[in-house]
């Protein structure tokens, strides 16, 4: 087939059809994947929440709280077993990581003890700062494990700064930042009276 010559009409037609087809197919693909993308995001979030809280059967409505320090509000997800609040997952953050922003999902039992955490987003150095993903929940190392501890009772800072938690070797900065994020979460929710949030309100 002969090549189309470059007349203005031909070109406009060609261009228009290319963009048209492109946009149409993109729209279709977007349509098709939208559900999956939203689902993936939801699963991710739910997984994170599951990982940090004790067993629950249903999540309540998420709400925002204003932290004591820092500009951005934190999102809180209350979890219920029956109508009992069994814990709250808080999406907290810090900006003092070695490479800036770190986002953590932290779980607290109603009494304020930490039930778990998972690091959602960070840019820390592989091999150093990245260790925080597991470091602070190593049940065999009492001095570095934060699970089951209550920030109200212990000093949630690294031992170098006089606190009760051992920092990651050679990554004190990341450790400090991580603990800062936890502390922020604790401070923002410690005054919420869990019992007032009756489950199944909706």
């Amino acid at each position, binding site marked *: 087939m002969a090549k189309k010559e470059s007349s203005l009409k031909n070109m406009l037609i060609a261009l228009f059809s290319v963009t048209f087809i492109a946009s149409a197919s993109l729209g279709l693909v977007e349509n098709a994947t939208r559900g999956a993308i939203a689902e993936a995001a939801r699963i991710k979030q739910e997984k994170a929440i599951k990982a940090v809280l004790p067993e629950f059967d249903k999540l309540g409505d998420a709400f925002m709280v204003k932290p004591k320090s820092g500009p951005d509000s934190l999102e809180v997800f209350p979890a219920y077993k029956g109508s009992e609040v069994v814990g709250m997952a808080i999406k907290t953050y810090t900006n003092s990581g*070695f490479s800036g922003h770190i986002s953590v999902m932290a779980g607290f039992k109603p009494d304020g003890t930490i039930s778990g955490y998972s690091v959602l987003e960070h840019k820390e150095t592989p091999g*150093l700062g990245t260790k925080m993903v597991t470091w602070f929940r190593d049940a065999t190392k009492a001095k570095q494990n934060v699970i089951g501890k209550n920030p109200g009772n212990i000093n949630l*800072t690294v031992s*170098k*700064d*006089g606190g009760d938690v051992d920092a990651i*070797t*050679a990554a*004190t*900065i990341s450790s*400090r930042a991580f603990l800062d994020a936890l502390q922020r979460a604790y401070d923002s929710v410690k005054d919420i009276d869990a019992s007032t949030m009756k489950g199944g309100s909706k």
Partner: protein
Amino acid sequence: MSKFLTISPSPHVKGEESVQKIMLWVILAMVPAMVWSFVVFGMGAIITTSVAILSCVFFEYAISRFILKTENSVGDLSAFLTGMLLAFNVPSSLPIWMIIIGALVAIGIGKLSFGGLGNNPFNPALVGRVFLLISFPVDMTSWPVNNNSGVDGVTGATPLGLVKEAISSGTPISQLTDQVPSNMDLFFGNIGGSLGEISAIALILGALFMLYKKVITWHIPVSILGTMFVFAGLLWTVDSEQFMNPMFHLLTGGAMLGALYMATDMVTSPMTPKGQLIYGIGIGIITISIRVFGAYPEGISFAILIMNAVTPLLNRYCKPKDFGRRAK
């Protein structure tokens, strides 16, 4: 006359200097600091130094002989010197295999990849050291405590590390006075740190010898230390609770070692006095910036490497004093 006459273009006489001699003078200049490190850190220092030197010399020989297939240049002693400086830049407790990796990086990547002595744009020993620092931050920042008894295994912080920790956790400097060693201790080397950097006096003695032998000129050391002093001094005047005094900055960490022995490496520093002054000022500013504002307690290695990268530009734009060309 038994043989043919020799013909060559003029000049027919040659000065006394040779590459080997220059390197030898630097090595000799470093002996006091080395001896001091042996005294302070004992066996660890001796092992570290000898492993570093041996492996640098070995890699220089092996790589040029078997990979590049060029004449090996072990004889010019520059690999020996690189090894010595590498050892000076690491804690005496560094595992031996890490030292060997450092030597391989210094010689293989830092030097021979560019064609050997004289061609490398970056200081090989520092390439090795920074590589180690980034790759093995834990071991590279575990300092054996400086106790003359030579007991191994106890680690402590360097004065710079101590201060960095304290400041970043919000402790004002006035509360640190009992932890930070006195200037006298810093000067004579009664502190923890990398093997060769601890005793300012030993390093200065050696540098005076190099100055006397005309291996180095005053421009680089003076501009580095001067800039550090002024910059740190400014910060200190602004807030002496947040920032350490300038003398402390000069005497701690690698300031002396870097300014006197590593920034002065002729291969990687600018050619003209003017270029050297700018180079030194750059190193000074970057070093203090990293120390004070950055994540690392010490920044002189990075500062020297960065200014090494600027050196070609300085060579390009800072020309020697001209003769009869000004009018043009």
